[in-house]
């Protein structure tokens, strides 16, 4: 994969580049400010990019805005956003266009290199990778999302794990169930939520969007 890495702290950027290259992917460009990031995304149109939310010049949400702007110009451009904190507000903005290919993780997710690279590949393939912290906040958000009321407890936990970006096989391992059982849960869940798409990836993204109250 061709990857762009945007991060203003040298140590982190360098570490991330080494990690990605160690897994056999190619880092085509790095950036350390918001405008540089947008330029790199436009020039290289990478298979996936890793972008820090807070960057110079304003030290606010430069990275996130660059990512959103780039996806405005190139719909579905896969981006993986890293941050020291996760907010549902940002997750909704990222998923709002419904195009998929979005990841939003805490920076410490790089601690587990295998999982991090796995998430990167999923995002590159058009899937989603949401941090468990975002999902946990959604689950504790009370019964605000009425559309999910029709789901059973089990279906809801499957949806939560799906939003994190896990495959049916991985969800089955996490819940100690067989892959085919998870397949049944997801099918009934898609039916209840009225999602009838042929492409499984699209279906999963749309289910996550429903989860985020955006669909």
């Amino acid at each position, binding site marked *: 994969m061709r990857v762009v890495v945007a991060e203003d702290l040298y140590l982190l950027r360098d570490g991330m580049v080494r990690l990605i290259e160690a897994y056999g992917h190619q880092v085509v460009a790095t950036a350390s400010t918001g405008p540089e990031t947008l330029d790199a995304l436009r020039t290289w149109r990478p298979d996936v990019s890793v972008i820090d939310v807070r960057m110079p010049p304003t030290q606010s949400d430069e990275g996130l805005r660059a990512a959103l702007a780039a996806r405005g110009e190139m719909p579905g451009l896969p981006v993986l956003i890293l941050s020291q*904190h996760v907010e549902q507000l940002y997750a909704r903005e990222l998923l709002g266009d419904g195009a998929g290919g979005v990841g939003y993780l805490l920076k410490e997710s790089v601690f587990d290199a295998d999982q991090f690279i796995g998430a990167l590949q999923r995002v590159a393939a058009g899937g989603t990778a949401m941090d468990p912290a975002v999902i946990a906040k959604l689950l504790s958000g009370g019964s605000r999302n009425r559309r999910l009321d029709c789901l059973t407890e089990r279906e809801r936990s499957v949806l939560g794990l799906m939003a994190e970006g896990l495959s049916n096989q991985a969800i089955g391992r996490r819940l100690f169930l067989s892959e085919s059982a998870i397949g049944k849960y997801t099918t009934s869940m898609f039916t209840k939520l009225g999602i009838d798409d042929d492409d499984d990836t699209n279906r999963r993204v749309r289910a996550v969007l429903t989860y985020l109250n955006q669909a």
Partner: protein
Amino acid sequence: MRQVGSWFARAGVGFVRACTVAAVTMLVPGVWAAAVALGIWWGPANPWSWVAPFVLVCLGTLALSRPVCRMVRHLVRRWTTSVIPDGYRPAPQVVRMSTGYWWNGFSYERSRRDAVMDQRWRLRYTDPATWRDLRFTVIAPFTAGLIASLPPVGAAAALLWLGRPGPGAGLLGAAGVVVAVASAPYAWRPLEPVAVRFLRPSRAAALTDRVDELTAQRANATVAQAAELRRIERDLHDGAQARLVALGLSLATAEKLMENDPDRARTILREARAGASASLAELRELVRGISPPVLTERGLVDAVRALALDIPLDTHVDADLRRRPEPPVESALYFGIAELLTNAVKHAHASRARVSIAQHADHLVVEVEDDGRGAATMHTGGGLAGLRRRLTAFDGTVEITSPAGGPTRIRMAVPCESS
């Protein structure tokens, strides 16, 4: 017809108000008249006929001036838009010293009661507000009081003469009715300008009060800041710092075990990674408590939106802000809103809330409303009192409307330039 009706209603209300004003302001002249009557009744032969009325006039005026002025302030506040602050000097606290004596800010006394009495008299004597009250009690009867007496006097004249035979009496009675009815809607009104002119604290007094207020605010802010820094220091010391030490220790152990027992080394490394994650989570919470990252990145409105998404409450956010307020104001308002929403969930058991943020002329106004069970009160040491204290540092105010049974509505206003 309706116009005539409303005029009569106004006349009726005005008549009652004029009677009230006349009664309040004429109280002191009433005492004077009683004293004079007493002197005349005793006759010039009685040696007390001069002294006793004089004492009565002095004591009566002194004792009645403060209650009369309080009443006038109350009436003006109730009937008009003017608010006249009383501006009395606050009494310093009476404290017991280690010697067992009581100190009241002026002198030492043997008992608490003596100290309080002594303080009261000294305050009365030295407070410029006392002299202002006295001046007003003397001026008011001859201005507002005299005019306010017109309707009751007219009514009394009508009652007295209308029933009697004779054309002169009828004329006088009719004149009384006309005076009473015509002056009723207006006769109480001079009370406001007179009270504002003579009862309002002087500029110097207002400035003194303001200086006291600011001194107290500064002391409060300093104490709060120091406490906050101590909390952060303690959290870092017990949390992140301790975890980093443990992390270093684990790494050192793993390094040592690497050659002989690589399996255990791997376990320790895995634990170390979990420890690093945990300390990051702790630091994140700490940072959120000092200054939430969304607030820095997006400003008040989006930070409140993010907050609304995180709490288990159906929260609607209405915002109309053209530009970001100063960072300290933004932070104070954010934490204020966070506290109110937490209260709505925890104490009021609300299911819905509405937050509105708007710029009103030269004030930034935030309203938080919930459908909980209400009965929120501001008591010393409580969260709402703390909120008010934090906002007073910016000359902000907090108003609470929270009847038992709900809904609770809390309005925070902070001055800020609108341009």
